[in-house]
């Protein structure tokens, strides 16, 4: 009975053994990676794998996008203000048209071209020049890069009031004239949108140039 008990205990003890101990040596003798490792406090920093130059790209990108966004807002606000001033001019001008003038109206485009240039176009161009100057200032902070031309162009800008060629200037046409003017200034494909498109294109090119040369 005692022998059976002893065998039974040996078997139990065998089954309870740590599997790793079958590879030879006791559990305590197994190599322990953690024990071999020095404590973290004793290690030097690892070499960095990140591109620090990208921080300059990031900063440049932000400067340029902020410039683009600011121009976007300022040109829109200015256009709104100028249109409102020009509307008053058109109202006054239409009110001045006499009886015969109403019968034989002159094309609004012909009468309004010069005042439009003076009151609206010149002011918008001034704002565009200001934007070019502020951009030049931003770029001067990055003197090592050769920049592509970054001036706004007059391309795609309707320099004539062609939209008013077939409409006479008189009080009854005033609303129609102002609608067309509003569209010319702030509508789809209008002056503001075209300038904004130019700014977006300039920004894109500059960012590409910087990232290509950095």
């Amino acid at each position: 009975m005692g022998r059976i008990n002893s065998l039974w205990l040996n078997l139990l003890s065998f089954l309870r053994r740590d599997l790793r101990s079958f590879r030879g040596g006791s559990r305590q003798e197994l190599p322990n990676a953690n024990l071999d490792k020095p404590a973290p406090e004793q290690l030097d920093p690892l070499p960095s794998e990140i591109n620090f130059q990208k921080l300059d790209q990031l900063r440049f990108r932000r400067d340029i996008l902020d410039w683009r966004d600011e121009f976007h807002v300022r040109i829109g606000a200015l256009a709104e203000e100028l249109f409102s001033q020009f509307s008053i001019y058109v109202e006054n001008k239409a009110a001045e048209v006499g009886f015969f003038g109403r019968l034989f109206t002159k094309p609004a485009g012909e009468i309004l071209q010069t005042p439009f240039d003076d009151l609206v176009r010149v002011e918008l161009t001034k704002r565009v020049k200001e934007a070019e100057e502020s951009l030049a200032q931003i770029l001067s902070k990055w003197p090592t890069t050769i920049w592509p031309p970054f001036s706004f162009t007059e391309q795609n800008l309707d320099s004539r009031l062609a939209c008013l060629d077939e409409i006479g200037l008189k009080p009854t046409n005033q609303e129609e004239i102002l609608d067309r003017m509003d569209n010319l200034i702030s509508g789809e494909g209008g002056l503001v949108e075209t300038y904004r498109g130019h700014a977006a294109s300039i920004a894109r090119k500059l960012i590409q140039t910087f990232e290509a040369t950095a």
Partner: protein
Amino acid sequence: MITQILFEIPAAYEAAVKAGSLVQIGGLLKNAATGQIVAHLQESGLAHSLISTAVAGAASPLKLAADVMNVGSGVYTAVQVTQLKSMIASLQSLQIATLGVSLVGLGVTVAGFIYMHKRFNSLDGRIDKLIASVHTGFESQREAALRAHMSQVKGLVKRAKQAPTLSRPEREYSRIAEDFSEQASHFEGELEFLIKVEGKVNVELFWQLAQVLTLCNSIRIDCRIRTNELRNAREIAESVANDYQMLFDQLTPGSFQASEGEGAVVAKTIRDITDAAATKPYLIEYLRTQRYDGREYLDRLENETQSPLLMLRVL
């Protein structure tokens, strides 16, 4: 030699930023003369809890600051209001223009999953209402898909909340990170669609979807940091930053159905968010090279009770 994680309060840097000797880029500060990174801006768990409570449902970035302060006085204790005010003041002193960025994480996001759950619930409700009430270009099939994804995201946050009780949470965090990656792709696609669809972008829907996207990505990164996969976390953070640039750079103040003023605030906010995302890899890389334990780092931030914003000084 490796030393302890060294946090400081933002006030210690404000004067140097103001004087121009330190330059802020996204969530980090650089020495203007040497170009060396001096410190990383890092939100703590306290920031997350403070912000989440008040502004989870803010309609747009413009309303955010006002909402924080207005809701703040009703919901918060006097101490919390003071902490919020100091956080906003710190962001402004460090020349981070918008508060919106604080909703999506400065430094690595400490995804206090309880707060995340609340925020996703709130975003879900708001998105639901928006889709129902305005014409957003969503067809019914897309609406249904969006709702399904919101539910999945909420389910994932629940899983993340429960993960610490597992004997091996690391595996669960890894799976959650993978699943969040899929969800982030979906919401990125939705945002892309919203931006590309003809006409101007609905600000409120854009803002809610952008928050979901950024939160999904933040949690992905958080989960990788928790499992100490810092190299992978950095890779993800880099890829997320690129995606944000592709998605958001094209948007201007005039891209939104809003006044130019509100559009300008939204544009500024998404620029701050993009920059914060782009500097996140630098912070993660710093943790990796210094051999910091990711879990320990997050624990330190979660347990911070005094300061919503901290600076991790670069040694």
